[in-house]
């Protein structure tokens, strides 16, 4: 078993929380993992990504080779396209549809969605609205994780446990909102 994941977004959108959740779940499932993160300059509103590798065997490289990612999980639609060189032929894109416009030449949202639709396996959801319904507009990242969860080869309950662990310090209310966000995302994926 092996799942190679690229998690992408814009600095400040919470991709490290997605990675931390999968990481905690992977440890609970006694899987090997390597998770490469971006710290530093790009965190100021630039494009950020994390290479996340899960396997039942030891993993050598911290980076995923081109063409080998099983999933691109993206909190921002244009950012999902930036990592296409890594996506394997049968890989999935799971992305938020809501653009984060912080550059003057941001393309038309419609064109981006059309471009994503050209990839055979895609799931595009409005994570921001789903998150708001779940109780917090900040939980869009967890909604996207929920939508990608069917493709991550781990029991769903281990992701829920990971969320309890990760957000436990912030109180029961925050935990519940994020569990709801995860579930709503999973349902929205239609898988």
């Amino acid at each position, binding site marked *: 078993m092996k799942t190679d994941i690229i998690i992408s977004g814009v600095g400040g959108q919470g991709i490290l929380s997605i990675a931390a959740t999968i990481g905690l779940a992977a440890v609970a499932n006694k899987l090997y993992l390597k998770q490469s993160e971006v710290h530093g300059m790009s965190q100021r509103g630039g494009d950020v990504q994390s290479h996340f590798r899960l396997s039942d065997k030891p993993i050598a490289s911290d980076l995923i080779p081109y*063409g080998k990612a099983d999933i691109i999980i993206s909190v921002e639609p244009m950012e999902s396209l930036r990592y296409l060189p890594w996506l394997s032929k049968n890989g999935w894109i799971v992305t938020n549809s809501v653009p984060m416009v912080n550059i003057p030449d941001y393309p038309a949202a419609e064109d981006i969605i059309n471009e994503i639709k050209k990839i055979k396996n895609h799931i595009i959801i409005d994570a921001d609205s789903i998150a708001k319904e779940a109780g917090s507009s900040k939980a869009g990242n967890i909604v996207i994780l929920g939508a990608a969860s069917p493709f991550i080869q781990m029991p769903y309950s281990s992701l829920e446990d990971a969320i309890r662990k990760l957000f436990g310090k912030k109180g029961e209310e925050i935990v519940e909102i994020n569990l709801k966000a995860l579930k709503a995302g999973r349902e929205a994926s239609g898988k």
Partner: protein
Amino acid sequence: MKNLLLLGDEAIAQAALDAGLSGMYAYPGTPSTEIMEYIQSSEQAEERNVHREWSANEKTAMEAALGMSYCGKRAMVAMKHVGLNVAADPFINSAMTGVNGGLIVVSADDPSMHSSQNEQDSRFYAKFANVPCFEPSDQQEAYEMIFDAFELSEKYKLPVLFRITTRLAHSRASVSLREPMPEKKLSLPADPVQFVLLPAIARKKYKYLIDAFEKLRYEIRLSKYNSFKDGSNRDMGIIACGIAYNYLIENIGSSNHEYPVLKLSGYPFPKDLIKDITGRCKSVLILEEGAPMVEESLRGLLDDGIKIYGRMDGTVPRDGELNPTIVAKSLGMETSFGSEVPSLVKSRPPSFCKGCGHADMFNALIDALKFYKTGSVFADIGCYTLGALPPYNSINSCVDMGASVTMAVGAADAGLFPSVSVIGDSTFTHSGMTGLLDAVVKGSSVTIIISDNSTTGMTGGQDSHATGRLEQICSGLGVDEKHIRLIIPLRKNHEENVLIMREEFEHRGVSVIIAQRECIQTATKKKRAVTSNR
């Protein structure tokens, strides 16, 4: 034993704590920052009261660590690669004095310059200083190696350079921990003049250093982090260093190799091991992150030995970070590729946060400079360097920490008017103060704008030594108090700020304008901490 999910940086920090560290010294710098941050938030460090405060810059950090080592205690100092340039003087001379307690100097290189001005390779500093260098390939090895590095440091009484690169620093994996060791007791050097580098003593110390070199080579040769695996095809052998070894294994698996593989883990390069593999193969491919240092030493000037493939002949790109795909190509293996990035995808450079005072400072500066035909803005390193990007396009230089002040001084010497420096508060106390003293002594016509967000922003908001001290420092250095101006960079103060800047440009002498507004990131973090404590 306990397992933790750790970044390479964190594995190094945890290892140092478990190896009985007494003092951690550092100035922030990507990708090394998380080493100190981990120790600062560690309960273990708190229980033992391990020294763990930021230093003003890498030089002061290195020297303080040497002082800790002088007392027989284990010390570590961490910095980004360019930080070692700043600390080069104490670093090179610490090889001459030698150490007492174990001393590890961690230097984190940034190939591909993800967050840096250059991609210099710190291993050259080991060669320059005649000290050993360790280079781990993964997080577990980084953890283990720290223990060996302390031991080697104490055995030869020399500092050990510990070289990592961005990818290892910022990648997380499970690390299994050892039983923690106690700290060393305070004990002064046996030789009372060990640290006194008067020429007569230094000459003796240098001979020791030269003599130690081949012994160190032997130690590195015996290191358990080297490995050799033979292969069936002797047409080529492969030498892989540090993290490059992982990219190799990703492609060829961990057993049944076609080509013989030698994994190297440190400097001085183990000649015997290298001779063994080059002796049995017709050619050799060298995979190393950073500069072609192993490759260059194998080729020598004449390059008339066996055929060598690497960065210098283009088999591997000459610059930039390695990755598994590049390594596959260098092996002539087939590689896969998803699909091209569609052309509509635009680059998304970092930018000022909403509510950042630097932005309002630049808006005022741009308007103030409109009244002059000539004039340049020498900037420095930090979030405010983003003033180089549109729509601001308002800085003319960014070289090294502190250079804004001194370049402005030199340009004023050349007759440039106005000659303006823009520097962050943390950068100012790192390396700007001495330049300001130059300006004061010479009476240079410069305007130094200290864009004070009261934190070290670019690296994630560490405390800044400058906070609350800037006016005092500037007047202490001799800047006329009438020309130390305080402004608040807010849109509503724009006109007033433009006016103040113009007044100070017109002053024929040193002016300092402190543009003070707290970083929006640290302000928000503080607010959150307050509400969650309620």
